[in-house]
């Protein structure tokens, strides 16, 4: 089962390597990991998608909490958060295919961000499942390059994950 774990960490160099090292040496399976700054310059936020049962998730949380630079760990319950990831894809598509691809983009909320005589580059930001469907739709046209970020997630409603001062 997949779990979305949000981790607030001190914005120090080396923190990410401590976290990724922890996952590899404890044998935890990491599906994706995304890190970036928050509105507090001293704090970064890491979003981890990890695979495992309840025991594993409890261990991941506890081991993360042991890292001195980890301020807060929260595993989202199913449906508790909104998650997004970004996908950029380059397709081998000349003029003959453009219209079809534009139609797909329109329906899937993707954008054309670059165009050449022989290629189209598309951008789409959505939930993991939507990106997967988008990829299936676009694949027949010939993907020549694809890149995607890890998932980032935020809690639904008014609640927040905040660092204690």
């Amino acid at each position: 089962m997949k779990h979305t774990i949000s981790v607030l960490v001190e914005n120090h160099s080396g923190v990410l390597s401590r976290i990724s090292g922890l996952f590899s040496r404890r044998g935890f399976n990491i599906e994706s990991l995304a890190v970036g700054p928050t509105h507090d310059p001293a704090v970064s936020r890491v979003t981890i998608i990890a695979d495992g049962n309840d025991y594993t998730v409890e261990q991941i949380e506890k081991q993360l909490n042991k890292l001195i630079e980890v301020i807060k760990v929260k595993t989202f319950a199913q449906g508790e958060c909104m998650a997004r990831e970004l996908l950029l894809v380059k397709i081998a598509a000349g003029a003959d295919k453009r219209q079809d691809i534009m139609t797909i983009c329109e329906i899937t909320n993707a954008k054309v961000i670059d165009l050449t005589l022989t290629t189209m580059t598309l951008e789409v930001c959505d939930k993991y499942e939507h990106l997967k469907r988008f990829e299936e739709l676009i694949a027949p046209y010939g993907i020549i390059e694809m890149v995607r970020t890890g998932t980032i997630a935020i809690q639904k409603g008014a609640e927040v994950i905040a660092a204690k001062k």
Partner: protein
Amino acid sequence: MKMTAAQAMAQCLNAEGIKVVFGYPGAAICPFYDALLDTDIRHILVRHEANGGHEASGYARISGKPAVCIATSGPGAVNLITAIATAYADSVPLICITGQVNRDQIGSDAFQEADITGSAEPFVKHSYLVSEPQDIPRIFKEAFYIAGTGRPGPVLIDVPMDVQREMIDFKYPTAVDIRGYKPTVKGNPWQVKRVYKALAEAKKPLICLGGGVFAGGAVREVRQLARTMQIPVITTMMGISAFPSDDPLFYGMIGMHGVMSANRAVQDCDTLFLIGARVGDRAVRTPLALEKTTKIIHIDIDPAEIGKNINVDYPLVGDSKLVLRQLLEMAEPCRHDDWLGQLSALRTEKTFADVPEGTVNPKLFIDRLSKAMPDGSVICADVGQNQIWTCTDYCFSDGDRLVTSGGMGTMGYSLPAAIGAKLADPKRTVCAICGDGSIQMSMMELATAVQHSVDIKLVIMTNTRLGMVRELQTKGYNDRQTAVFLDGSPDFIKLADAYGIPAVRVTDEASMEEAITRLSNDKGLLVAEVIVDKDFATL
């Protein structure tokens, strides 16, 4: 006050009350060594950085406070890793200070450059690579706090040479504030009540002590609780000597090398109360079977240990001493006569097998040694058969202490740990017990002991084999013995003589008596080599 960062580092150690440090210099740590000269801190020159770390480890375990070891950059720092990992596995508070190449050289593969914070990462509680000289006082304050509080462990501070040389404004902080590190020390009162109720209602309760009893300084509280509630006690290897071996409530060490009475007690109890014991694979081989039949109570200061190796019915996060005091406040006297009667029937009288001419029974030697050693002795057991013999046959009286590498099983630990232990408390008699294999991993430290007049006793059990591996090959590999023969070893009596250390060889009853008398009474360094039959079994 203006001073160099190196001087500030020395002042930080002063402020933390550090009297002794263990280290080995090199170019990248020279500014700090120079600054140390102007303090009253005693520097013990070790003969290998790993041993320096073990010496600090022995010192920390006896003093109960973080101890300091120092190495230079590159090979010096990398040599420390075994000691760091050993300390981490046994939750020993160390402050490891390493020199590093200049900041502008980092990442350039400079001479004696090694990424020590990166390579030691899996084995440290925390680490720092100091990039701002002005951060030195805060980092040292935090490092001592992190190493010594919560679940203790090693903290590494890597200081580039040019950082050490810069001038800073020194003021030692009075407090630390790390928002990601707030260890829970007091037990949740509601949960403490539940634990007490489970314990009081148990028909066959059993207390299992681990290393956390020493880390929390809870030795006295454990005894009080066990005696008040009449609960029998067993220990893991790390918990040995937390309860007197000759106490009627004591049933020995559990585990694959433990004693029958302890292992049976674990199987037969209805409630197992783990105190600072992490249920390692050597202590409990089948936790899944155990958790099905037994109620498990687990006190640990590290929340991550609770539920990691065994499912727990009553988890309780907190410092062993504080939680036990909370329990003692409500503890009423109980009786478990039937249960204790059942257990005492499992106790077997110690017997010592006859051994071939020219050798002595190592278990008999250890048993007799324990009866002769003064109260409050510190015994440092190495790793291998000698460790198991010491753990099962040394009778630890009230106040005695065992120091051994329980988690990592690091050979060569005992001699340096003994040196550190003796320096931490010179009044106590300190004796290292090792094999002829393990001594050869750290025997260069005899020079350290001689140079700094550290009065320790060293027992070498010579069976000309790596006995435990030999036994494993016999039992598990059709007796295909390989790479376990220690031919080429020196004559340990001559070796001691080369260092100017008196030595005795034990080959029979008479020489055993003489050696034990001298080990327990003589002043000054002494080596006793005990000749053991090559096939003498571990258990």
